């Protein structure tokens, strides 16, 4: 059956060059299942990140080299994921989800960790790993897998099942405790449900229920240090040398950067160690201090372009599973950005969410690039499927 052009043609026209590019299919990139636009943006972002990291780490080549290596590994992971046909993901999703849940339970009972949090799993003959990182991909896959098989927009019953798929792993992760990751995973699952076409009335209903649950979560579920973070968020000056220190110092770093910044390597807040965790979660403050508002706008523009490109890929995806998964992954990526910058600039409580591809750190960068690999796979395999 000959289909009419998709309804979203209007939208595509707003993305100049996107279609034109797609028509030159037989390039090296397409044989490697890589989307050059996305790759270009990601590499640009990664390099910018390394420049900031060099300054944020106190001009340490060691950190920069290590992070560059990780970025290389992450690119490799992206490449591997991009080669796999989305249908393979789709087929294996329930199995992966079951394994993921098992691993999370394993963490609960046999996990290892530090600083009062138990997040790692050490299995024989395997390197130590964080099951919650895998769940960042598996949970949206599972919800997409489930909803793609149901009638959309989803019925209320299917929404409840979808929510259950999300809530169980999120609870397990929140109990580790890892608030940042559980928020990211919860939102990745919810994005799938939203993209599937859940009625806004139901969304509002859930919103009301959730809001009323907040006090319960507060008193029975949250750890003291998590409560402290939230309390500090509302009044950072109450403990300027303790819990409020991070926020005050990062706001000072950002604010003192002004429009044009103090210049690369000239940031006093980070270089004099006033800024805590300047090379990890708070790295955006270094960027803002040294490159000013202009620098941050450049960074935000890069993120925006990546998100738009990701949504574009999701829009053109071939089936519901790919669409929902792609849309969810890219919006989750944006949640990273928003939560991180929001917390560093003091409009959100401090939760341990890194700035994707810029913050120094191992596991999350691989997961994020793997997610982009999935997106590229969705994009490139669609073409190959059509032209086979």
């Amino acid at each position: 059956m000959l289909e009419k052009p998709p309804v979203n043609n209007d939208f595509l026209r707003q993305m100049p060059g996107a279609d034109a590019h797609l028509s030159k299919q037989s390039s090296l990139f397409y044989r490697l299942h890589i989307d050059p636009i996305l790759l270009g943006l990601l590499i640009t972002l990664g390099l910018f990140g390394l420049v900031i990291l060099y300054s944020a780490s106190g001009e340490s080549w060691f950190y920069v080299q290590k992070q560059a290596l990780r970025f290389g590994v992450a690119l490799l992971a992206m490449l591997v994921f991009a080669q796999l046909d989305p249908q393979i993901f789709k087929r294996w999703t329930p199995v992966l989800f079951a394994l993921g849940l098992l691993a999370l339970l394993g963490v609960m009972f046999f996990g290892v960790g530090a600083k009062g949090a138990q997040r790692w799993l050490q299995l024989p003959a395997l390197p130590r790993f964080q099951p919650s990182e895998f769940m960042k991909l598996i949970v949206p896959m599972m919800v997409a897998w489930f909803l793609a098989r149901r009638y959309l927009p989803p019925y209320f019953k299917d929404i409840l099942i979808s929510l259950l798929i999300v809530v169980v792993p999120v609870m397990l992760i929140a109990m580790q405790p890892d608030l940042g990751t559980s928020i990211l995973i919860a939102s990745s699952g919810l994005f799938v449900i939203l993209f599937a076409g859940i009625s806004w009335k139901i969304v509002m209903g859930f919103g009301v229920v959730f809001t009323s649950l907040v006090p319960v979560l507060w008193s029975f579920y949250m750890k003291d240090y998590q409560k402290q973070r939230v309390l500090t968020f509302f009044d950072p000056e109450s403990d300027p040398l303790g819990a409020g220190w991070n926020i005050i110092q990062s706001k000072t770093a950002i604010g003192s950067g002004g429009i044009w910044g103090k210049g690369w390597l000239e940031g006093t807040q980070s270089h004099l160690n006033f800024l805590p965790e300047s090379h990890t979660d708070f790295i955006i403050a270094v960027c803002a201090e040294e490159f000013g508002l202009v620098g941050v706008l450049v960074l935000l523009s890069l993120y925006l372009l990546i998100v738009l490109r990701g949504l574009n890929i999701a829009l053109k995806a071939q089936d519901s599973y790919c669409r929902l998964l792609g849309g969810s992954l890219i919006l989750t990526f944006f949640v990273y950005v928003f939560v991180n910058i929001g917390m560093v600039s003091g409009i959100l409580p401090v939760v341990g969410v890194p700035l994707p591809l810029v913050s120094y750190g191992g596991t999350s960068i691989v997961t994020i690039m793997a997610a982009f690999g999935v997106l590229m796979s969705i994009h490139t395999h669609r073409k190959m499927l059509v032209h086979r």
Partner: protein
Amino acid sequence: MKGSQPLKDDNRERSIFAVRTIIAIFIVMGMLGALVWRLYHLQVVDYEHYNTLSDKNRMQLQPVAPNRGLIYDRHGALLADNQPVFSLSIIPELVDNLESQLSALRGLVDISDDQVKRFRKLLKRARRPYQPVSLKGKLSEAEIAIIEVRRHEFQGVEVIAQLARYYPFGELTAHSLGYVGRINEEELATLDERNYSATNYIGKLGVERFYEAELHGTAGLQTIETNAGNRILRVLNDVPPVPGKNLVLHLDIALQAKAQQLLEGKRAAVVAIEPSTGGILAMVSTPSFDPNKFVTGIDHASYDALRDSLDLPLFNRALKGRYPPGSTIKPIVGMAGLDVGAVTKSYSIMDYGFYRLPNEERLYRDWKREGHGRMNLFTSITESCDTYFYDLAFKMGVDDMSRYLGYFGFGQNTSLDIDEARSGLLPSRDWKRGLRGEPWYPGDSLNMGIGQGYMLSTPLQLAAATALIANRGAWVAPRMLKQTGDKSIVLSQRENALGDVSLRKPENWEYIVDAMESVMHGKKGTARGSGYGAQYRMAGKTGTAQVVGIAQGEEYDAEALAERHRDHALFVGFAPVDEPQIAVAVIVENGGGGSVSAAPVARALFDHWLVDAERLNVGEASGE
């Protein structure tokens, strides 16, 4: 089939997804907008605020303590030095668990409960973040080594080197120089906070306290860049401190040592003044204490021992000891009697050993039971006849006596730079009525005429009054400071309280001085033993001050009285008579008679100052 579930409609799903994507794009843009709005506020609207915060963060104004001025004696001997001491301090902000840190430190070095208590007190005081709080002062080298070796275990613990006062002569100068100690809360409230922000010590007593402003100097100011760990990265701006001025005192440490040696083991005081300048050559109060102990903080046990000692080592007898002057004021009273015309040089009385007021039963007894016989003013001074002075005092009355004694500096602190000096007590009609609500009785005048009764004086006052006689009426206020290091005038001195004393007949000065000379050299002089064999002529007057009143008709037996109830021995004098170079006042508590205990001390000091010192200067031996 699939039950109630309708067939999936791919187009519908696509269109829903497209709509939701557009909504998502709007939401993403909105959230990005919120971030940008936030950043705009931080970086543009509130830029000034955060820029200031940032500067404050990394740039600290660090005051730099000036070096305290040194104190020298008249010949340049260093009396007060600055030496480095090492103290153990903690930067609380860098310590995770203060309690465990404290107990760990106490396991390493000896830290007393007092020190911990003081540390906690200091901790509660307002201070800048990352400022070290002192835990233990004066670490020994072994302690420094122990701490330094295990430094890595003690985050936030620092060994800080500072200059602290050191008094090389220790006990010898405690009562003349005073000492410095840690600034206490009371002082903190009144200090110039800026100038003292880096200073830990302040003059507590004596010269150290009086010339605090000159000695302290002006604090410097460094603008330093630090990191959050308070490590100094670089100095951005440096205003160096202005060190305190060095002081040169009139004090002669050799004479001081001599006096100390002479008074060893006694509760006594000596003040020696140079009559031409009023400069205090020696000021000794025994027993004394080691002022160095007070600098870095004395421990409670040592302090209690000093405070509770019956001999009162902390008490500066030279300045604060209030003693009845006894017969040492007779030359002054006699001079007053001549000047107001109560007696004449030729006037004499017959002394039978007592004096009786008209219409009174009570006998006022002379120290010599059988009496001195016929006495005039000159012989009464030489032999210290009480009866003559009873008569003189009765004739002169309290008003004139009090007035003239006032001219000589009694009843007030006349020093230029000794705040601790007590004013003693110069009784008068008004004083007695005001304080006791009683009228002045003629008997009170009699007692006052021989320096007993209500009148109280300090050794410093006696020495200053003696210097005035030595100067034949030219008043010089007693003073410690000779000059400051840069010879500029020191403005913080007190006003000169007195003027010169001019007698109606100036030749009376010589008459009195001659009488005092005969005390030392006359056949019947009470201190002739101490004047014997001197290469120079000296003038003096002995005195004996009763500690307990002796009841009417009772025999005074020095042996029988407990040692602490024995009379105080006093002596005032100057030498040489014609060109006085030194005037002294000596008091030996419970020393018995002035001629026995006090006069020999003065003689030894005269010898030291006039003969030994001359020998040193000329460089030739001129033995007797």
